[in-house]
């Protein structure tokens, strides 16, 4: 099987999704000739033409609102918001329309679109290029939210997202675009939406995470192993809808849970996961569920980002604390 990095896997997924369904359109800023600022859409315009791979004017409400319109009108738009920090620019369409259209029209109009957006920090990017805004979207009913951590999942989940009848927001951990490589099947395939992945099997505690932080958790798990503690790592992959069964099964098995992620803790998606475990598995728990997130302040400029986003050390101290509880 060929080895690809995450951005190559996404690129291949987009090529195949466009080839198998001519209703699929790709639109956004710099996605055409330039192939996207991260090259995720490289080669698409050359292959499928400028009518299907469109460099839009610089306008996020325009990109999102017109994607909703195209989706209602029978197309399958895959739009790109160039960076996580520019998602708020289009929030009106996401919060007020994208996830509601099906329900407001009692199923008459649906929005089968995908919104792709890079996610997270640690690439020394300028301000507003390193945000983790997933909670805002996960909090909004009617939308599926994905954040993969491996090339194979990125491709399979992207194809599943394009084929999905409902709107999907697809966050791409930009720290992993080129940093992770893995075997990716050549043919088109779906990785099921709504299913978590056991990234590591363990018995003493569970580290739950998504996106780039999964790799930080795996690193922490290796160190814990040396300290004599067996850590399970659960990669959520899909943030909405959550894989409740997998979360509760692991919590039940280990009785100790740390949830690690890049966003500030307050009101984060980790808070939702924590609440679900506490509500439904209280009696399996041997220690309180612990969240490890960024501090509850804005993402600083990049010189301090490594002191802001949790590293393996911070995941470890949370793990040690609940092991000693």
């Amino acid at each position, binding site marked *: 099987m060929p080895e690809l990095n995450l951005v190559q896997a996404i690129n291949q997924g987009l090529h195949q999704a466009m080839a198998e369904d001519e209703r699929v359109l790709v639109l956004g800023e710099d996605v055409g*000739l330039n192939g996207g600022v991260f090259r995720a859409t490289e080669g698409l315009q050359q292959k499928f033409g400028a009518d299907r791979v469109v460099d839009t004017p610089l306008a996020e*409400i325009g990109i999102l609102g017109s994607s909703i319109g195209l989706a209602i009108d029978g197309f399958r738009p895959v739009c790109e918001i160039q960076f996580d920090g520019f998602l708020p620019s289009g929030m009106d369409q996401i919060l007020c329309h994208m996830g509601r259209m099906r329900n407001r029209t009692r199923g008459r109009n649906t929005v089968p679109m995908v919104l792709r957006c890079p996610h997270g920090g640690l690439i020394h990017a300028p301000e507003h290029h390193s945000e983790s805004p997933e909670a805002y979207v996960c909090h909004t009913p009617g939308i599926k939210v994905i954040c993969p951590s491996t090339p194979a999942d990125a491709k399979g989940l992207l194809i599943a997202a394009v084929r999905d009848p409902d709107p999907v927001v697809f966050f791409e951990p930009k720290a992993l675009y080129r940093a992770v490589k893995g075997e990716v099947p050549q043919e088109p395939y779906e990785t099921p939406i709504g299913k978590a992945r056991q990234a590591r099997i363990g018995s003493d505690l569970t580290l739950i995470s998504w996106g780039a932080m999964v790799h930080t958790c795996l690193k922490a798990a290796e160190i814990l192993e040396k300290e004599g503690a067996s850590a399970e790592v659960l990669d959520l992959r899909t943030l909405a809808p959550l894989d409740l069964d997998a979360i509760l099964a692991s919590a039940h098995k280990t009785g100790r849970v740390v949830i690690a992620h890049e966003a500030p803790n307050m009101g984060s998606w980790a808070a939702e996961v924590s609440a679900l475990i506490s509500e439904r598995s209280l009696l399996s728990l041997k220690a309180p569920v612990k969240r490890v997130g960024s501090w509850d302040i804005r993402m600083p400029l990049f010189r301090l980002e490594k002191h802001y986003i949790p590293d393996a050390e911070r995941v470890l101290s949370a793990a040690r604390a609940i092991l000693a509880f």
Partner: protein
Amino acid sequence: MPIISADLSRTERVEILSAEGVRDFSIPVDLPEEQLLWLYRKMIELRLFDERSVKLQRQGRLGTYPMILGQEASQIVPAACLRPKDWLVPTYRGQGAYYARGMQLRYSLLYWAGDDRGVKFPDENNDLIFAIPVGSHLTQAAGLAWGEKLKGKGGVAMAYLGDGTSSKGDLHEALTFCASMKLPAIYIIENNHWAISVPREKQSAGKTLAQKAWGYGAFGVQVDGNDVFAIYKEVSAAVARAREGRGPSVIECETYRLSHHTTADDAGRYRDASEVEAWKRKDPILRLRRYLESQGLWDAEKEARLQKESLAMLEAEIKAYESFPPPNPLDMFSENYAVAPWQLIEERAELQKILETRTGDENLAVLPPAEGRFP
């Protein structure tokens, strides 16, 4: 009934100094020699700064940096039409606008090195930090202008934006507010023909971007954005109108981004080198120098001296920039609220503990004391 024109929109284009450096004296511009030479100096300094910044970035001594090359006139001249207490809101490609108002270049470098201590403007100025989500500052500028109108002392607000940014809905709302309330605002569109890889034609089918202004009841004009005289004439007139309570203006400066979008971009992927070459011949600095020489105001010796002085000034700024001690990570927690809530107090203490146990440069004992107010 005859069909008549329903509005008075008309957008003019102003050019005064040709690419060859020939000035059209039939169009009066009240720009004293001394100020003209000052503008020339600032443009030279800015160009050299830009060159040095790119080199620093390539050497790993600076983060991603947005180049100004080719836009020195449209950067420096509008900001130079303001008083320090007028509001200025540039874009991220705005080191030149801040510099025209006296910001020290060491801080621009510090900012683009990813250090929040780089946000440091002269105390006497009303300079506002730019917005990275493009266009989001435009309605804020309307608010600044509104405030100045309420104060009634003739203050104005000026915001810059790019051709790509003119597509954002924010401009629509900003101009709607400014025009309907007759606010003292000036919007400078630096049309450099590119928004990363997207050419100007894709942003609007209109012939100019300035013409948008008339739809809101604001004044709009396009100028040759590499022409110091044309920019100065139109921007200073717009500032004067704003001070007198005669409402907002949009000045579109047609210029060109001679370099990549930023050091992270490769313009060779999406545009022709021949287009760039053609625009190099319209360089704003070259034409002003030719004009100054033709008037006996400038010569090779003066140029050599200016270059030498500018380079020495830049070396001093770079040295000052590189002599900043590393930031104390606890700085992050300062200045988030007037009074910090409990979670910040807890989290700062947690980070403090982490830093105390780290080794080498990361240890709190060797870091400078934290800056800013906390809690």
